[in-house]
């Protein structure tokens, strides 16, 4: 009897799996990118729950790429040939995504990349590769556009870490300001992890720039702002591109982070359908604030799963439906379009935010604004 019950239980548990479409997930669940990977994993888990409620049963095949492109590629091979998935959501990092994109094209597997920033990924004319988030160049252009719409800055200074990320982001920014007629008065590339930026900042101060554009990770971002205050660097606005300026830790340092302008793909106070609800449920379930990666991953999985289901598990039909479709959800309006050299790229609106009262408040675009921007940057106290 007991055996029968067990068999019944197993078969009941298996039934939805047998009927379900297989969708692959490649993510950095361990390794150095794991803290961000965790957000993506959680976002997809929430999507899985919501899909169940909607009656979309899917079987997820999880693959951990540990943040390494070669492992990411073998994961893609396995998903495409052995697991026969309809589509894949992931991977996280730019390097992994770029490597996997070419494989997706080779095996004709629709790939939806949730949160990788490198522009090149969707600029190679790959028909099966779709991207949810806005690419890296939009960080620079959104921030500079924001400053130009708020005031009349004429000059700009750059300070960035001399890594791939820092150099490429500030390079796109420099190209963009050249078009907008801003004068670059100082440029400092610093080695990550220096203890003392005071002399570089003093040098920038002596050039008296209207804007200061910074690209850094968490700890450096705090140090840079602290030392900017120390040397009395007083531009019209501090623009922070990159990871360091959009974290809770940074906002908590109110003495130095207040009024700094940064930009992000998503916040939980934006009025995109379900964004606030997603933020609340995420916090209730995982005990942490979601980052934009979580929202990107959630939206990507919702779209991929529903499209795969409607296409009856056919890869070609799924691809065509992704290309033709239009959605509106936690990431706002999503459509994979071809523009400005991009293929299947969601022309996502970046949100420009400012830390006001210790909180990130959206200031631009104005239809999503939660607070009025403070410009120019107030005198250091």
């Amino acid at each position, binding site marked *: 009897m007991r055996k029968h019950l067990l068999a019944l239980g197993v078969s009941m548990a298996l039934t939805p799996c047998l009927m379900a479409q297989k969708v692959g997930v490649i993510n950095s669940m361990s390794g150095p990118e794991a803290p961000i990977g965790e957000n993506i994993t959680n976002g997809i888990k929430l999507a899985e729950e919501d899909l169940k409620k909607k009656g979309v049963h899917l079987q997820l095949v999880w693959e951990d790429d540990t943040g390494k492109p070669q492992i990411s590629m073998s994961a893609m091979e396995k998903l495409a040939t052995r697991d026969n998935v309809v589509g894949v959501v992931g991977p996280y990092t730019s390097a992994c995504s770029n490597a996997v994109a070419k494989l997706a094209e080779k095996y004709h597997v629709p790939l939806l990349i949730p949160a990788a920033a490198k522009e090149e990924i969707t600029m190679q004319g790959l028909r099966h590769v779709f991207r949810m988030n806005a690419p890296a160049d939009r960080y620079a252009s959104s921030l500079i556009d924001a400053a130009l719409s708020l005031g009349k800055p004429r000059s700009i200074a750059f300070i960035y870490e001399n890594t791939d990320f820092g150099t490429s982001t500030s390079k796109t920014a420099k190209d963009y300001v050249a078009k907008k007629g801003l004068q670059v008065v100082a440029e400092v*590339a610093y080695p990550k992890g220096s203890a003392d930026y005071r002399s570089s900042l003093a040098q920038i101060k002596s050039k008296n720039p209207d804007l200061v554009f910074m690209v850094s990770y968490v700890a450096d971002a705090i140090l840079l702002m602290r030392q900017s205050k120390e040397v009395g660097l007083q531009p019209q606005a501090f623009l922070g591109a990159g990871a360091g300026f959009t974290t809770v830790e940074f906002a908590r340092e109110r003495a130095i982070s207040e009024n700094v302008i940064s930009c992000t793909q998503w916040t939980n106070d934006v009025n995109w359908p379900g964004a606030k609800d997603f933020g609340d449920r995420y916090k209730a379930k995982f005990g942490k604030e979601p980052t934009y990666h979580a929202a990107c991953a959630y939206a990507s999985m919702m779209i991929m799963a529903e499209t795969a289901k409607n296409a009856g598990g056919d890869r070609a039909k799924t691809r065509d439906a992704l290309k033709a479709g239009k959605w509106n959800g936690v990431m706002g309006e999503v459509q994979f379009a071809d523009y400005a050299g991009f293929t299947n790229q969601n022309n996502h609106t970046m949100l420009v935010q400012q830390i006001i009262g210790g909180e990130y408040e959206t200031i631009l675009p104005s239809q999503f604004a939660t607070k009025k921007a403070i410009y120019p940057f107030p005198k250091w106290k």
Partner: protein
Amino acid sequence: MAVFMQSLISGILIGGVYALIGIGLTLIFGVMRVINFGHGDILMVGMYLTYLLFTYLGIDPFVSVLITFPLMFLFGGFLQKVFINRVLNAAAQNQILLTIGLGLIMSNTVMLIFTSDYKILSTSYSSATIQVGGGVSVSTPLLISFLITAGITAALYWFLLKTDTGQAIRATAQDREAAQLMGINVKRMSILAFGLGSALAGTAGALIAPTYYIFPQVGAVFTLKAFVITVLGGMGSVVGATLGGILIGITESMSAVYISSGWKDVVVFVLFLLVLLFRPSGLMGKSRT
């Protein structure tokens, strides 16, 4: 001019803390002829100690030096007694391997406990400054740590020059066997020296904590710096390490302004090579031929 003064002053202030790290290393080398490759990791332990004292007991980082110093002294003494003493007469590469190994154990243990996340200590004065005039400002926490460094260095000089124990340590450094013949307990002096060296590194960690950030691998940055400072000043010379620290601080800060931030390490090492070319035993070192 303001830029020049600004970078000179911050160079001197940061150099003071570098000096403290260098003095610890040079003291250990002087007495035992052991190059301590775990020096930066000892500093890192000091940083985490400060972090714990501040976050859980609310003790100000600068006040916590009073606790960090003796604790790190005991920790250093323990390392010396249990590990280093056993390899004092071993080949140099064995000593180096031992200290590297100890360093790795420290940084990985800390990583297991605290994860590899960056920690930032935020005190009420972390971003406070004092205006000196002429557009030059001085970071308050950096100034305080410089003053504490100066105080500790002065006390250390007094200890080494005027007290019996200090003279015994110097005697051991000069000639271990002769010192032993004179009735000095050299093993005890070694424990004292390693304890002091560790306490200085730990204190440096505590002093940097309010202005820098804390993570388990932070030691590597400072081990290398400590080396350059010690060799530049002359291995085993406390005065040399003080000078070397300040010199490196100023060079870093000046070259960041007048050459390029990315090149400042190159400038430091070129200077280092030049000093070694013209004074192979370092600025204050005596040649040991």
